[in-house]
């Protein structure tokens, strides 16, 4: 680089003896340039060749042009659901039904968890794993159970990697999943409105609209969001075939996902899978707008608290102690 002055950046034609000889389109120099550029372009095309395979196998024109969930007409949505069922059949070899569960009027879901009786068995996390068609290799789940040291509510003292019989006498357990905040930071930060809060309080993701920037994952204070780092792998006989567009259908690669309070169940009047799996009855789920619901009873009679209240996220997920 610090060579003598003859190598020039700007006065390029100084050595070539002026511009005269470049005038012909087919001069030796122009031909060489053209050749080099063609070669360069070909090299870039070759370098990008893995994309060709991916475009062929994993995407389609219909998918590329698909509108945002909330802008789909009834007929559009029908077609999308059909297409997704067909894709699932092709990719995973099994028949699934993908429905569109809408929020019910007069319902706002809330969840409460009794920390006094949670034994940390992680069956909720496991149930979530199966119910929501998570990737098997990563044993992903929307729930993380923290083993907490008695005498502290500080998560810093928590540990998710405990590996001993539970419950440990000196510990208590705190499962954490999406808090379905009323003021969700994840929704605010999304640049493309791929995630939003539904009328019944559930924060959902349109897996076919998300661009995978993972800003929501950075914004969530509860580690509730997950990214599909690769295409999920699930053996076909383990797939839960009862699926919903906004919840447990098998997610595409490269998009965000999260707990949806099992909306494919709860919007049908059933309980979330994690609640049904809980052997101690630590979980209480229901309609916050119904004054006679069990969840309301808990909130009215127990001293409940929410996680990281100081952040102003206003969770719909409550914790309480019995004794």
């Amino acid at each position: 680089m610090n060579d003598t002055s003859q190598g020039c950046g700007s006065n390029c034609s100084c050595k070539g003896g002026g511009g005269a000889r470049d005038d012909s389109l087919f001069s030796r120099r122009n031909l060489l340039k053209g050749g080099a550029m063609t070669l360069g372009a070909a090299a870039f095309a070759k370098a990008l060749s893995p994309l060709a395979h991916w475009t062929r196998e994993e995407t389609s024109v219909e998918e590329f042009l698909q509108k945002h969930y909330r802008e789909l007409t009834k007929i559009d949505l029908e077609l999308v659901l059909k297409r997704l069922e067909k894709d699932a059949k092709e990719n995973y070899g099994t028949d699934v039904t993908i429905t569109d569960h809408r929020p019910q009027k007069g319902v706002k879901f809330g969840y409460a968890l009794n920390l006094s009786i949670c034994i940390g068995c992680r069956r909720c996390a496991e149930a979530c794993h199966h119910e929501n068609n998570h990737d098997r290799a990563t044993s992903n789940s929307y729930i993380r159970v923290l083993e907490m040291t008695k005498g502290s509510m500080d998560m810093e003292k928590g540990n998710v990697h405990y590996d001993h019989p539970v419950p440990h006498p000196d510990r208590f357990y705190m499962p954490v999943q999406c808090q379905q905040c009323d003021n969700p930071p994840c929704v605010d930060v999304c640049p493309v409105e791929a995630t939003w809060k539904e009328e019944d309080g559930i924060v959902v993701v349109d897996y076919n609209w998300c661009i995978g920037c993972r800003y929501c994952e950075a914004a969530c204070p509860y580690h509730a969001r997950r990214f599909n780092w690769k295409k999920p792998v699930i053996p076909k006989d383990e797939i839960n075939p009862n699926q919903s567009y906004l919840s447990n259908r098998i997610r595409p690669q490269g998009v965000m996902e999260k707990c949806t309070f099992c909306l494919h169940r709860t919007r049908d009047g059933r309980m979330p899978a994690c609640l049904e799996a809980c052997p101690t009855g630590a979980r209480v789920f229901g309609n916050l707008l119904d004054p006679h619901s069990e969840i309301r009873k808990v909130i009215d009679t127990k001293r409940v608290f929410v996680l990281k209240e100081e952040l102003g996220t206003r969770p719909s997920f409550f914790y309480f102690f019995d004794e």
Partner: protein
Amino acid sequence: MTPPDAETADASRHDARFHATSYLRFLRLAFRLATEGSWLFYAWMFVLTCIALVGTHAWAVQVRDGMAVTAMTDHVSWGLYIANFTFIVGLAAGGVMMVIPAYIYHDRDMHDTVIIGELLAIASIVMCLLFVVVDLGRPDRFWHIMPFVGKFNWPISMLTWDVIVLNGYLLLNLHICGYLLYKRFLGETPDKRWYVPFVFLSIAWAISIHTVTAFLYCGLGGRPFWNTALLAPRFLTSAFVAGPAFIVVVLQIIRRMTKMKIGEGSIRTLVGIMRITILINLVMLVSEIFTSFYTGGSHGVSAKYLFFGHHGHGALVPWMWTSVTFSIIAAILLMRPKVHEHLWTLDIACVLGFAGIWIEKGMGLIIPGFIPSTLHEWVEYLPSATEWKITAGIWAGGLLIYTLLLKVAIPVFSGEANKLSN
């Protein structure tokens, strides 16, 4: 490469037809200037192309196989890409430290060289945009983030602000550089009305790009490490170290390789700026460290991890101390009297300052924001081979664009190109 400024103030003298032909001649000349050079030039371009090819391929594989090929996880969900993005936004903004002396203080020498800073802004913004694209899980859905076409979550999402300010800054600089170059090519005096307002707008805009980039992070209440009002000022200050440092080296290379006159004044002014900004940046760093460590508690956990590690987790410790050491050495070197005349000292200071801030804003800022995670899990991060390849590829691509831009701009500005085209 340069936008058509079809209608200019000279429209009175030139009609659209004139511009249609002369702009084509201008583009032809630009193409010729950009593709002809010494062997050294060809070798340089060849090497950059090869690196860019490696990066391109690695990215294609990443899109096909998923981002599992990176070292990122659900815990550390942004890594080397966003780190570089953050740093390079600063590099783009740093060019403004040439624009301000040139246009506000009417520094003669700087006025002659300011285009070098403006072109750097163009190349940098292209790199920024590429770093965002490679960080997307679904780059095929890029159109979702385009205003009017997709669903643009403006004004609430800071990322949409970033899309606006970055592309706006790109367009501003393309216009300014394109207009000035075309006018030089025509051998006419540029009409102030057609670029000075844009230059002043670009000064404010440069501040905005880095402020908005800081707001991406500091607005997140769940990440105490980033959640500090000092972040934007720190970003700007460190950008005004890294930007000038890069340009000082570039100016010297141009002085050696071309006939362009680089006045002593430009380098002296830039060094003057760096001397101050590097110290302010260190003061801000100390201020952050003091707040974190003296207060203690969970707000200081990430900072402690960053500088000293945490129970056997110490992946970032060597990075951060390297950064701090580099910055301090650079600051001391820059204090040498008349450092602009001692080029070796100056160059070492520039390289150390540049590298120090590259680490500070990347491995020293983006990564520790995720460690420990929001549930206090300790998952560490070091970039994977794929990430290094893609990162190197984008840097090579950026340098390639910058080289080509300079290759066209310098002879056009010196008037040498006119001899060629006539």
